[in-house]
């Protein structure tokens, strides 16, 4: 450096020219800077969209999010009724809660100012306390950016061409890796349990699967479902309807995961070893069960665990009832049922086959022999079409048809089959008919989307070449001279919304009658129960509603010491899992009853 560094003294003075320049200051609060479009400020929650799954609360490592009851919001299946409340004394504005919100209701806004002298002022229920936040949303997670995995691991299945060749199982089940990935999608919220009639511990066993503890998963599953392998294959899986992921994507494949877990136990012995249930000392109380369907088996199993002496009376030669005789083997192989029944037998459940109550043994005898009776007789009779010519040869009730096929018989259906109906049974009928080599046309009164059948089933049927004619009402069966079915006449319908609101009603369009030629007709429009086995005095003391027995919450009938469940009672829906629930809760009720008697 020279002796005097003039440059070094003068150049910095150039900074003084800034005095003349406009200041850079934003005069907050008079002036404000625009907040960017992605700003992570306070939360906003769309309370209607929110399902209260609490995933935000789980991911929050600061434990800033509480799930609390909020006025005016009632829980319902698929919505816990709780809403997140955020403690801004904890929040770090990381927005992980936004990124994991399965419904996409939670987002963050451009608001970030909250100043108070009261430290207790920083709890906020987003959406309720800042209703205006909706217009200021800046940070949200679309299905692309969300951390939830909205796409399910696809299930491997047989190609349609191969399927129709045989009764081989269509779905091949998850491999271990697939199951772990699929199980890891679950956010463990537990909303699904509410929609399950028996309230299985779904999040727990899925979590066990995702952690690799398959045996624990099996134990958890058997806690309140004794026929899980059946459920894993053919359950109506209403749990998946309310899955948190289903709001914006595909539900977790709860059914397939259950199937995966239960298939790890290859035989009854393994089930016994893994489940290793606690069996109470025999208490000498005898319970008779009519019908070895899901309801009866379940009641029997759980009562047996509680130390009761169980005898099941079954009319047919195989256990399982409707799941044995009503569900085609390509969906539920014989072994699956047998395995579980064997396991139950090992617990001590006794089953008398080929013992039809009312014929081989009277109801009174059973009632007198046992301290209590559970009745799960199911719906054995199909409804008839109720149209002209339905008495023709070749007109089948779906139950009879499926039963026959499941017994191993191959009835001659001819080349062309018409199936009437839109439920699961109709789908089974169609697909079984395809497997028997027939061309199948299915008629349904409403649209395909309105069909009560499982989407998977409809899809499978369409893939296999079943032709579905929607909005078609059968009017007449056309017979040939020998009294055999020759064809069917139907009329097209249009859907008219009823005045009071609700589901649109099909109304026939005049003059649209069409005739299709066919060799057989399968009526799959519902079943009804046959209570002929019950003596008159018992029947008189029971209440019936639409041809079904009315029971209370604990599945008690009006007749003392008689419980009932399954499809034949008017409680919940008509499916296997509801029957299991009936059996399960009836068992609890019976146990509670005898505990009370004892005490």
């Amino acid at each position, binding site marked *: 450096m020279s002796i005097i560094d003039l440059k070094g003294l003068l150049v910095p003075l150039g900074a003084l020219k800034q005095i003349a320049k406009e200041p850079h*200051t934003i005069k907050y609060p008079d002036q*404000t800077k625009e907040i960017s479009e992605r700003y992570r400020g306070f939360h906003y929650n769309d309370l209607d969209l929110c399902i209260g799954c609490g995933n935000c609360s789980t991911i929050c490592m600061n434990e800033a999010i509480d799930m609390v009851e909020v006025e005016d919001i009632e829980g319902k299946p698929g919505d816990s009724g709780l809403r997140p409340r955020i403690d801004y*004394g904890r929040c770090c504005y990381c927005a992980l809660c936004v990124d994991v919100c399965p419904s996409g209701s939670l987002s963050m806004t451009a608001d*970030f100012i909250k100043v108070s*002298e009261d*430290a207790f002022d920083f709890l906020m229920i987003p959406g309720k306390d800042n209703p205006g936040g909706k217009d200021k949303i800046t940070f949200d997670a679309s299905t692309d950016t969300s951390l939830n995995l909205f796409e399910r691991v696809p299930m491997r299945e047989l190609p349609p061409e191969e399927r129709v060749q045989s009764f081989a199982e269509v779905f091949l089940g998850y491999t271990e890796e697939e199951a772990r990935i699929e199980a890891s999608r679950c956010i463990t919220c537990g909303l699904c349990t509410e929609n399950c009639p028996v309230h299985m511990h779904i999040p727990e066993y899925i979590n066990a699967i995702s952690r690799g503890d398959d045996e624990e998963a099996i134990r958890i599953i058997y806690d309140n479902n004794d026929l899980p392998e059946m459920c894993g294959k053919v359950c109506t899986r209403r749990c998946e309807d309310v899955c948190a992921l289903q709001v914006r994507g595909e539900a977790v494949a709860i059914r397939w995961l259950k199937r995966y877990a239960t298939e790890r136990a290859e035989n009854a012995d393994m089930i016994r070893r893994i489940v290793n249930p606690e069996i109470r000392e025999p208490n000498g109380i005898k319970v008779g069960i009519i019908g070895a369907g899901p309801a009866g088996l379940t009641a029997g199993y759980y009562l047996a665990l509680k130390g009761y002496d169980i005898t099941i009376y079954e009319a047919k030669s195989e256990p399982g009832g409707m799941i044995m005789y009503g569900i085609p083997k390509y969906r539920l192989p014989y072994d699956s049922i047998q395995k579980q029944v064997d396991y139950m037998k090992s617990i001590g459940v006794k089953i008398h086959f080929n013992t039809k109550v009312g014929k081989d043994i009277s109801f009174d005898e059973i009632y007198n022999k046992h301290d209590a009776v559970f009745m799960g007789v199911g719906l054995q009779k199909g409804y008839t079409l109720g149209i002209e010519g339905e008495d023709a040869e070749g007109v089948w009730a779906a139950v009879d048809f499926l039963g026959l096929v499941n017994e191993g018989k191959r009835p001659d259906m001819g080349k062309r089959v018409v199936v009437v109906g839109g439920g699961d049974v109709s789908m089974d009928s169609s697909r079984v008919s395809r497997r028997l080599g027939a061309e199948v046309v299915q008629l349904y009164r409403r649209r395909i989307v309105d069909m009560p059948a499982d989407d998977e089933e409809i899809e499978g049927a369409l893939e296999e070449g079943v032709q579905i004619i929607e909005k078609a009402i059968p009017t007449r069966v056309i017979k040939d001279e020998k009294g055999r079915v020759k064809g069917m006449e139907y009329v097209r319908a249009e859907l008219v919304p009823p005045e009071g609101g609700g589901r649109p009603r099909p109304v026939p369009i005049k003059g649209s009658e069409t005739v299709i030629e066919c060799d057989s007709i399968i009526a799959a429009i519902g079943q009804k129960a046959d209570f002929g086995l019950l003596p008159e005095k018992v029947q008189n003391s029971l209440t019936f509603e639409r041809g079904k027995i009315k029971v209370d919450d604990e599945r008690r009938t009006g007749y003392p010491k008689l419980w009932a469940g399954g499809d034949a009672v008017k409680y919940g829906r008509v499916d296997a899992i509801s029957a299991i629930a009936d059996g399960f809760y009836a068992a609890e009720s019976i146990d509670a009853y005898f505990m009370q008697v004892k005490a």
Partner: protein
Amino acid sequence: MSETKDIRIITRPTKEQIRQAQIDFAPRCTAAGRVNDKETQKMVQYILNFARKHSLFLLAYGTGCGAIEIPATLTSRYDAERLGIRGAATPRQADVLMITGYLSTKTLKRVIRVYEQMQDPKYVVAFGSCTINGGMYFDSYNTIKALDRYIPVDVYIAGCMPRPEAVLKGFAKLQELIQNGNAGNGECYRKNLDWYRANQQKVIKNWDFPDEYNW
């Protein structure tokens, strides 16, 4: 089903119980005894409060992450000095103690000392989640969770970190409180010193300062 409701009532605190717990949590004497609103307070007091609110000397003490937004607040973009807010180097000269975020127990000890060195009326502004309820570090063994258990606080600002705008808003709130005569808790602190000391000593195990430090 009906019995579950009963269990809830027995095991869960009611709204009133929660509210009571909040009231009992820390002394609140901000409003007690010395509310002098515009009508009743003397002219002098009014003018003094006006000067106080427009002249806030911040103690330059970066106790936590929040310190990072203080430069931004004080520099050209947001320029807090136009509101009379400026830094002060020592506690003796400062009016406002900013607790900018979490406080480790080791810092808490110094903060208490600094707070006690400050001269009345003195104000405490708490920044960010950590001062309110522990924030991110709610399960850390070394940070305190609720600041008002240890020193009285005038204003809390939400955020992690609070943006400069929020900081300015916090000061605006403080100014409002000062004008109303509701800010400044030094008296409250002295009155409840035993309670505060007990809390402080619960977390600060080693209460002594290094010998040379005691000037």
